[in-house]
């Protein structure tokens, strides 16, 4: 993605593309190359794979949500078009599995079951607690993770499957850190979260570590860019329209100018 993006930009002759392409290659660490997965949401006709999103949600809920919040995703979004598209009943059932703070009729604080307008609750009461519970390293919110790193989905996939790699001889892994070549600096506070068979997929798919990593990366891309399908569908129409419009304008131009020297 990164190189392709840089190439396209250069080809289009965008001012500063040079700077941009090189800048991005360096900003992401340069030395390690991310693993490249095939994503159904890439390209002009890309769209999310509903089954992958549902499996990814399962991985998030069963594993990642122990440490990571998902602040900008509401339960109602699980039924949105272009997302996991759960039927409303299932979405509400998922929401009801969570406990949310509320008040009773007397105004006393209580815990009530979650409802569709609620957002995924954070595993922590506050950031101080988040840091304290993770040895000082705060697990970042995952809602926008897929856009907050270069080539996000491939980065998440590489990171989650990157623990397997052997520690090079010259690297000394610090206490409480784990070797992962895809993380900038190579040592991350997050312990390996996925090993394979961490979830039992509802659709029967075999839960290998790659499968889980791919699914959760897919899900996090949706969490970060829930309107991707609407955007790409609109984009195809808009581009088609504009190309035809440009062609027609060109013909008008030629007609108007046909009788004069210029």
């Amino acid at each position, binding site marked *: 993605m990164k190189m392709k993006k840089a190439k396209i930009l250069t080809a289009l002759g965008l001012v*500063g593309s040079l700077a941009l392409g090189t800048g991005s290659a360096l900003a992401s660490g340069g030395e390690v190359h991310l693993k490249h997965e095939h994503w159904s949401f890439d390209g002009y006709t890309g769209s999310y794979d509903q089954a992958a999103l549902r499996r990814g949600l399962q991985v998030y809920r069963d594993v990642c949500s122990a440490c990571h919040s998902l602040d900008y995703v509401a339960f109602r*979004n699980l039924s949105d078009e272009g997302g996991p598209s759960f039927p409303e009943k299932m979405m509400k059932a998922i929401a009801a599995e969570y406990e949310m703070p509320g008040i009773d009729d007397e105004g006393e604080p209580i815990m009530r079951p979650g409802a569709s307008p609620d957002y995924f609750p954070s595993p922590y009461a506050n950031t101080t607690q988040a840091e304290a519970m993770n040895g000082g390293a705060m697990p970042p919110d995952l809602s926008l993770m897929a856009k907050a790193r270069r080539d996000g989905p491939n980065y998440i996939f590489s990171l989650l499957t990157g623990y397997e790699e052997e520690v090079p001889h010259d690297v000394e892994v610090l206490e409480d850190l784990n070797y992962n070549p895809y993380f900038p600096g190579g040592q991350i506070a997050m312990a390996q979260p996925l090993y394979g068979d961490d979830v039992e997929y509802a659709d029967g798919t075999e839960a290998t570590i790659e499968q889980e990593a791919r699914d959760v990366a897919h899900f996090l891309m949706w969490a970060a860019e829930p309107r991707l399908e609407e955007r790409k569908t609109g984009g195809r129409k808009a581009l088609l329209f504009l190309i035809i419009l440009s062609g027609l304008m060109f013909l008008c131009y030629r007609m108007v*100018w046909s009788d004069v020297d210029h």
Partner: protein
Amino acid sequence: MAHQSNYNPSNGFTKWMDERLPIIRLGYDSFVEFPNPRNLNYWWTFGAVLAVALIWQIVTGIVLAMHYTPTVEGAYASIEHIMRDVNYGWFLRYGHANGGAMFFLAVYIHMFRGLYYGSYKAPREVLWILGMLIYFLMMATGFLGYVLPWGQMSFWAATVITNFFDAIPWVGGSIKTLLLGGPAVAEPTLNRFYSLHYLLPFIIVGVVILHIWALHIPGSANPTGIEKKGPQDTLPFHPYFTVKDLFAVAVFATFFAWFLYFQPNAMGHPDNYIEANPLQTPPHIVPEWYYLPFYAILRSITFDIFFLKAQLLGVIAMFGSIVILFFLPWLDRSKVRSMRYRPVMRFFFILFVLDCFILGWVGANSPDVTVLGIEAKNIGLFSTFYYFAFFMIIMPVVGMMETPKPLPEGIHESVLARSGKGASKHADGDA
């Protein structure tokens, strides 16, 4: 108006109006009948592209403002609300962000056009200066706008840029405090940046009106750089240039739409999808691509000269690199306008364009990156030197020394020569 008005109000209402506020006459004289050189090429369509881009930015901006919250607590979340919950909010937001970049792309093409064809030379000095004023306001507007989403890059770009004011002796600290509304980037900063970001585009509109007014006194220059001499050299603005401008706008819009719909984040920085955190400095703080050359100039000076500190020199160089453009009409000593007839100057011009790209690259990378064994900061210093030398040495000296190629007799003759017809053959039903 520089040309005679031939407007004839045709019905009762237009006659009535013409005697009271001749605004229809103004429109007719400026955009229907206005005589434009017939040999304008596509580089002259970017003014129209810019006009459309400005309207686009204002319209999308106004709607975004309906959903945006200018508070430290709420800004970032309100952007996400726009992206997720507002109908077509993603379109507005990506449209405005990428639209800003497109605006700069168009303005750079427009300015390089002016530079190449000598459009800034008499009698268009005021037109050029108004253009520079617009550009300066655009830079300010873009910078203010970038802070509003309150991402990591927003916050840290604002911090880094405003810190440079500290370098200005005596008053720097006070200016900085005034800009920020306090000692550091915080809520008062966000509030005033928002207010100013909403204000400046309308000031730009005002200056654009003056810009077009100043344009319509001498009329557009043209690729030959020779002034129009009579009707054989021109065509009425409508339909000839309206249709050509619309074609160019449609092509540009297609290019823009590709970014908006298919690469909306390609020109942004991923760190801006992380909420601002004053306690955590990102490893690389880089501005948007359209500021990179100036950022490179700012950082290029790393040594003190006598009592002048490097940081102050950097600030002077950065502002100087923009201020110097205001003086272009007087730095250029050549009698010939267009570089089409100035091979030596054209050579230095091409180097200058390359130099701007190189400065852009330097701005995007940390100073100690090396290319072919040369450190980026040295490349930056050299490129900054060429930037200034181009205007302060090359432009005046080459202007006085160079023998230009022979100019065509006039616009019409040049057009006929180009289209292969002899200058003697006077054709066309337009004469």
